[in-house]
């Protein structure tokens, strides 16, 4: 697998019509859903490539002698305000606002220019001709409209657009900055957890997100398994949290790797804004914003890995950062696992399912077969034993259509889009 093709982020836009993916090579690929076939209504429209562009290039920081990876860490869509679409994409250091617009007409018949653009000899111009727009093949253009650079010393892990649609935050390991979408030459630092003495560093910021409805509220998760909710009205610098969400550690589970597996890799608010979900290495937790001392729901994603932590540490898999997502109605949550498995948990029925994203096992239009991992002991038919899981096939990024039951699941370098059966 070419490293540049490894998908590093997946995100639906607000209507669900567009799906953006970013990869390690710094490219963004946008898929568009075909308009439904209203007559047949057999299925929702398929997603086809809509636009591809190079968002970020590798850079070199000469001052620090550091190479800056072009890998796209996150993409976030802005809500649509006019014909064009806007999204923010970020690598480790720089955030860019891209405008994606369609062009399906072009002006033809210039008076002073030839069709190929060369200027005509003025002496040959004897009549007045006004250009007119004529249809052309649809062309989707992406142009960078803003570049928000030089605000992060550490690696950016999150961006989140505020519900005011004017500001957004970007978070790196130790700091969170607040930007205005129109202003690129300055940002406000709103969280700074860098200790005076770096030797005293005990935790880093792992993810941050604005509340979907309250434009003054955001949360950030840490490598220690805590989530802090901050209110920007309280003070300019939100170092002191308004709420601290933390579940006490179960001492019987203590191991060498306890700190690693408790590190939160993703935090997502529910659409309602009442709950938030966190993902750590082995589980998904749902928190009620009104209760700080423990999550209201906990789902084990792959508990069978708990006894394998040592091997997972050796092969670095224990550092994998899985994301999680809500469905449109906040009734189901989804997250990825290994062996190209992904898991869904229905919060109401308490049922869960494991599915696999792979070409061999799934023909288009076939129903996915539930999978099961056998932790130990006798393996039943169709079960997969833990030891035969392929840890190189990991699903880190998943996304759920905001309105429909369509999901996008990224394996290492492939994007799978599934939808539920439409009867």
């Amino acid at each position, binding site marked *: 697998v070419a490293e540049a093709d490894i998908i590093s982020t997946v995100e639906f836009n607000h209507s669900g019509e567009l799906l953006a993916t970013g990869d390690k090579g710094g490219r963004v690929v946008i898929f568009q859903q075909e308009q439904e076939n209203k007559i047949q209504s057999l299925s929702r429209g398929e997603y086809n490539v809509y636009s591809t562009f190079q968002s970020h290039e590798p850079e070199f920081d000469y001052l620090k002698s*550091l190479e800056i990876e072009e890998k796209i860490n996150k993409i976030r869509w802005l809500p649509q305000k006019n014909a064009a679409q806007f999204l923010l994409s970020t690598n480790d250091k720089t955030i860019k606002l891209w405008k994606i617009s369609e062009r399906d007409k072009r002006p033809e018949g210039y008076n002073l220019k030839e069709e190929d653009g060369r200027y005509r000899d003025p002496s040959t111009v004897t009549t007045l001709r006004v250009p007119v727009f004529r249809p052309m093949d649809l062309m989707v253009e992406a142009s960078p409209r803003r570049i928000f650079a030089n605000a992060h010393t550490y690696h950016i892990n999150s961006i989140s657009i505020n519900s005011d649609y004017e500001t957004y935050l970007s978070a790196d390991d130790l700091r969170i900055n607040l930007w205005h979408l129109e202003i690129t030459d300055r940002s406000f630092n709103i969280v700074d957890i860098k200790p005076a003495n770096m*030797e005293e560093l005990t935790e*880093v910021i792992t993810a941050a997100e604005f509340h979907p409805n309250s434009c003054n509220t955001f949360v950030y998760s840490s*490598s220690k398994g805590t989530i802090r909710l901050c209110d920007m009205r309280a003070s300019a610098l939100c170092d002191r949290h308004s709420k601290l969400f933390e579940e006490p550690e179960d001492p019987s589970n203590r191991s*060498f*790797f306890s700190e*690693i597996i408790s590190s939160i890799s993703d935090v997502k608010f529910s659409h309602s804004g009442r709950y938030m979900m966190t993902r750590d290495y082995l589980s998904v937790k749902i928190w009620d914003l009104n209760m700080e001392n423990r999550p209201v729901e906990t789902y084990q994603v792959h508990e069978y890995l708990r006894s394998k932590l040592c091997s997972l540490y050796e092969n670095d898999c224990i550092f994998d950062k899985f994301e999680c997502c809500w469905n449109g109605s906040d009734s189901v949550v989804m997250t990825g696992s290994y062996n190209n498995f992904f898991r869904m948990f229905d919060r109401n029925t308490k049922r869960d399912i494991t599915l696999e994203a792979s070409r061999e096992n799934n023909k288009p239009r076939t129903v996915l077969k539930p999978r099961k991992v056998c932790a130990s002991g006798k393996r039943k038919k169709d079960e997969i034993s833990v030891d035969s899981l392929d840890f190189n096939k990991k699903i880190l990024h998943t996304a759920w259509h905001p309105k429909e039951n369509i999901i996008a699941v990224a394996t290492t370098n492939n994007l799978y889009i599934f939808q539920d059966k439409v009867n």
Partner: protein
Amino acid sequence: MLGGRRRMECALDAQSLISLSLRKIHSSRTQRGGIKLHKNLLVSYVLRNARQLYLSERYAELYRRQQHYQEGGLLLGAPPGCAPAGEIPPEFSPLQLAAEPEDPEPGMQQPRSCGLGCAAGGALGRGGGDLLEVPVCAALLPGAPQEDEPLELQPSPPQHPQPATPSALRRDSSPGFYRGGGGSSASPGLLYPVPTSCDFGSPAPPGSAMSSASGGASAHCSSRTTVLDLDTHVVTTVENGYLHQDCCSQCPCCCQGAAGLGAPPPTPGTKRKYYPGQEDEEDGDPGGVAVGGGSPFSLCSKRARFEDFSPEQPPDSSNISNLISIFGSGFTGLVSRQQADCEQPLNGQLCGKQALASLGAWTRAIVAF
């Protein structure tokens, strides 16, 4: 942190885990995109956990050996007059006594480290470092846990009701001071060349050398010393003043160190390193507890001593030492600064935290680097 449980869970032993972690940190420095702070921080946690288990395993092993040797009768009996087990004021080593003059600050008495790398004792005389260092050496051993039990690494404040201030450590210890379960048992702790301990001790009549030591100190002399390992929070009782050096595993002769008691510089095994560069003082110690080579003793140093992973150790450890030496110059400064900063008398818990903090210092320094 439960050593036993952890060991069960992990296919790698602590030492391999340490070298693996260091390799990860090292390779992250050359990765594209620069050092990943988050990953390095997590690796440093594993490093710390593994290191603590590693140290406790070493101590446990030493304890086992000591038990063995004890049976072999190589030990010196307690000098007459030394109080038997019981309320023995923790005393670290005669060296300590010798060290007294150099370290007059109360609360900062840095007992000389027994060879056990309490070379952390390197802290000694520096006016820095934790008292904790010392106990480590001696502490190692499971005054508490039984032989085969790995030492509890978890700081157990409830078990140390007595503030383990440096001075406190020298006073009569109450039973409460001992870690629950074993502290007060008569289990021998480390051996250390004693009689000299008596000799050492003698120059230091309870009142003096062990300045802060309580009166019971003299009685203690060499019969029993209780030390608190502020790093691992293990309280150990050292019987007969025998201190078994950490290097024992590598220097089989060290047991014979016992034989060196009272004699001129005994076998290398008994050499004890207090801290680097203090050879002259050590020479002055009665009993000729001379300074040994740095490496064998630094094993249990809590500070990021590079000697911790001395070349004498199995190849894996030499990897570690090589790797650490890569970070060497950048961190020694940090480390020594850290030690110098530790000035206040701390109770056991605080000391522990500080030790842990300093333990983390070098690992985190790697991160920050």
